[in-house]
């Protein structure tokens, strides 16, 4: 009897590990990109410089996060257009509660928080160009600047041009991009388009204090083509890639005059950011 019990137990344990996923069709979803109907100015490759993306993970209930916001403002002053920042509210300190009623969290932000293992150090943290620096993705505040410095030393492998067309009456946004490879780069490329908003006034903890009218900048609001975007598969005759996406913003409560699109060009395999561009609506 003991033997039978043992066998049954083992069988149940093993069965728990054994499973299968039956997928129902259709399997392919069409790429929802739209026609690129704008003219991009010619670029001079000699004038293209590499920009660095810093994704700052933060939360309105995070007491130390304003230190990160201040550091980011300082880095922006130092590096100017070479640095593009996205503020991602995710993790437990981004949850709503009491006067912290504004929900800044997004699906994209939650996914990135998981994928880049931000909970290893918690907020405030930042990921620079979606690369590991010192064998980890999330960096604490003192490590942000050295990582940016390191990234700025790398060659520029692509140029990204971004033109936004915003129809104020229909509140429809169309973001057009053109990607040009430089320096013989051959990696598979992927482009993601995010929306960020500056100047959002809402409560924020800052040390012991709670600041009711804190100004939140470069807050991630969503994306036009998913968290990791779309691969650039079909080049134009001149070898460049055009990709355009639309977004109906009519139901959004954003202040459009403070909104920008951030175009993130990354390596399709590693998701390492190769170039980034930002343009207002």
């Amino acid at each position, binding site marked *: 009897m003991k*033997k*039978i019990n*043992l*066998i049954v137990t*083992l*069988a149940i344990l*093993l*069965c728990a*590990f*054994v*499973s*299968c*996923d*039956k*997928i129902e*069709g*259709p*399997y*392919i*979803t*069409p*790429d929802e*990109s739209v026609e690129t109907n704008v003219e991009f100015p010619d670029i001079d490759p000699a004038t293209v410089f590499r920009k660095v993306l810093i994704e700052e993970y933060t939360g309105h209930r995070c007491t130390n996060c304003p230190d990160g916001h201040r550091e980011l403002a300082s880095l922006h002053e130092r590096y100017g257009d070479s640095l593009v920042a996205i503020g991602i509210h995710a993790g437990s300190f981004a949850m709503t509660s009491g006067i912290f009623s504004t929900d800044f969290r997004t699906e994209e932000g939650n996914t990135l928080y998981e*994928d880049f293992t931000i909970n290893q150090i918690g907020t405030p943290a930042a990921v620079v160009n979606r690369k590991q620096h010192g064998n980890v993705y999330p960096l604490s505040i003192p490590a942000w600047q050295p990582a940016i410095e390191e990234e700025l030393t790398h060659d520029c492998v692509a140029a990204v041009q971004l033109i936004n067309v915003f129809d104020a009456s229909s509140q429809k946004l169309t973001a057009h991009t053109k990607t040009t490879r430089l320096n013989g780069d051959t990696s598979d490329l992927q482009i993601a388009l995010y929306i960020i908003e500056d100047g959002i006034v809402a409560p924020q903890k800052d040390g012991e204090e709670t600041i009711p009218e804190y100004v939140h900048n470069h807050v991630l609001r969503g994306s036009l083509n*998913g968290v*990791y975007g*779309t*691969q650039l*598969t*079909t080049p134009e005759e001149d070898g460049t890639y055009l990709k355009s996406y639309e977004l109906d913003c009519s139901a959004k409560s954003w202040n459009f005059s403070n909104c920008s699109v951030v175009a993130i060009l990354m390596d*399709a395999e590693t998701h390492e950011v190769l170039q980034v561009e930002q343009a207002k609506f």
Partner: protein
Amino acid sequence: MRRIFPILTALLITVLCSSTAWGQSKWGHISGDFGFNGMYYIPDSIIGAKEVKEKVRANTWLNLNYTNSGFTAGLRYEFYSFPLIDFEDIGYKGQGLTHYFLDYKNDFIQVTAGTFYEQFGNGFTLRAYEDRQLGIDNSLLGARIKVTPYKGITLKGVWGIERKNFDFEYTKRHDYVRGLDAELSFSDMIGKLSEKGFVLSVGGSFVSKYEKSEKDMYITLPDNQTGILSADKIPQNIATWAARLNFGYKGFRLESEFAHKINDPNNTNSYIYKNGNSFLLTASYSMKGFGVEASFIRSDNMDFRSQRDISASTSLLSINYIPAVNRQYTYALLANYTYASQPNGQIGVQAQVNYKIPKGSKLGGKYGIDITANYARFHNVEQKLVPDAEANGLMNGTDGYTSRFFAFGNDLLYQDIGIEFSHRFNNKNWKLDLAYNFITYNLTILQGHPSPMFKGHNVMGKVTYKINTKHALKLEVHHLYAKEDDGSWLYGLLEYSIAPHWFISVADQWNYGNADKIHRTHYYNIAAAFVIKTTRISLNFGKTKEGILCIGGVCRSVPASYGLGLTVTTSF
């Protein structure tokens, strides 16, 4: 996993050190083997043997096992940092402790932790095995349990991560395999069945692999449109199951296994979602002086790997195994036209008849004549594209095709018609073997280079003369007549052996019929081997043709080479 590794090593070293002092005693027993297979390479532009920078390359390994009662511990160190060029070509390059395990076994249970090999049934759902010649080692790192609750009942459970050459970063892997197998042998359970000459067993297995799906895939559709196969449409858990039957009564035997695999879009099947299946049926009958065996096999979309991105051109990370049921030859000139099993699409038959012309008959002479006749034919499976695949102009991201179970596809893959005679005479001091084969081989599908269908007539003659109890001489002559591929070949071998220590041979393959005169090359080989107890040392010098090496229907490419080889193997 990295933490387990030093613990296992330390434990093993401890038991080995303690037991060495006592050798074979109550403290246990140590066994193992060592191998060195090296070659000095010489470039040869005519045969395409490339210059090897290091000049000398070698594969080296050492196995050590310690056993004491029901307990076994073992490890293998492989040094393949500068391997033979064949192995470098397939990515089998590196060094490290590749095999390490602890195992305990009694009459009821066997448990293993570490790396292990296992096979369920014919291997349709799981075959973790090693073939050193092919450079295949897909052992699982994990755990295994085997239980034998009653005589004739065996239950197995495995879970682990497959070995991927010398990539030891198991903690970074997002794939693993788990499986169950059960076998009931009624002839072992019921004594009367076996007493009456019956053999009856049934079995079943279930294997599932998990692989994280985190990236969308992109497919170029007609009119340059892009389709997205999003990560949530790529299955992470993929299962196969199989059922098998083995029945026998006296000289008659029937063996069969059927397997089914659910949607498994991967690189080898162009990322289609069609279910896979395989079926093997073998029936045989034998009596004194006569035997007949026939097999039918079908496998469709059954290439099953731990990682979906692995290419079909390598055997890396294969979870299962679909055997080749055709006759396996060792004839030198047919080596490059050996049928490779096609897990993703093959259907075929194999039949063989053995007959012995009786001893003492007019035709059979004093010792009789053994005759073997053989026929094998394999096609691709029938494929009718599903409407989505038709519309897109490619199968990727669709259900691919439909296929009637017993319908042969239009493409012939391989055919073999053969007959062999074997006869001893003059007090068995002389033996004569004669064989003829007509081989039809689809180079385009089986080797991936577009070529006309290869048709070759191979004739083989072998004479063995036993001079006395120690000395023997063997002469082989083969001729392959063909118009396709490299054309016709002639092969000769002369081997002299002085038992039990020495073997010396001279051989030459001459591609006299090559359409390109410059490639009418002699691939000669001079070899000598010395054997003492369990140690074998062999030297060979010569040329090897670029081609393939196949064992049991699994093949790998062989680059052209020229040089001096040294092999040392020993076991203890």
